């Protein structure tokens, strides 16, 4: 269901009908992560690349494992750490 609101802009008030936010299941901590990632990426909406995911996992205390062919591949945490 959409919600409507009046927003003041530089050129006067406008009515906005916005889609229902898809974040109702996010915690405050998760919102903080998203806001920080948006700020860091200048809002470019980067996909979670391997390097970025590894950085997050490293920051969260997880480990990655180096495999053949000089590629870094992250072991599936579900398969490896669960």
């Amino acid at each position: 269901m959409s919600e409507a609101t009046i927003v003041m802009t530089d050129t006067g008030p406008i009515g906005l009908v916005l889609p229902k936010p898809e974040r109702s299941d996010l915690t405050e901590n998760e919102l903080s992560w998203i806001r920080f990632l948006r700020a860091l990426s200048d809002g470019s909406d980067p996909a979670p690349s391997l390097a970025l995911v590894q950085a997050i996992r490293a920051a969260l205390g997880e480990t990655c494992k180096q495999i053949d062919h000089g590629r870094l591949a992250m072991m599936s945490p579900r398969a490896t750490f669960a």
Partner: protein
Amino acid sequence: MATKPHADTRLAKFVSQRIADLNGTKTQAEIAAEAGFLNANVLSMIKSGSTKLALDRVPQLAKALECDPAFLLRLTMEQSLGVTAAKAVGEIFGSPLTANEREWIAEIRDASGETDPRLTARSRARLREIFGR
């Protein structure tokens, strides 16, 4: 009055980039038609910043540009309202997550074992490193 008041907006640059990316797959005229623009020149005007994208055009244009609608909506709100006002709207209503952001959340949940980790100074520093900030 500036003839291209929206030239420096992220929306204008993003639309230009997506049309360039789709070159060879579909033409600008095809994208315009798919997005429901009766006049194909509207896309040129959006690209150049001489006109802005109407909010109600976001879903169809996102589909035509094969991009994330939530991301396009965010850029369009920035362009329509200004960066600060768009942030205020986002604070109140929430800003829809893009598909990439949903993946980020899934990764964070997975990596933390669903422990809802705080964004610590260490995590910030690590991410800054990766993003070169």
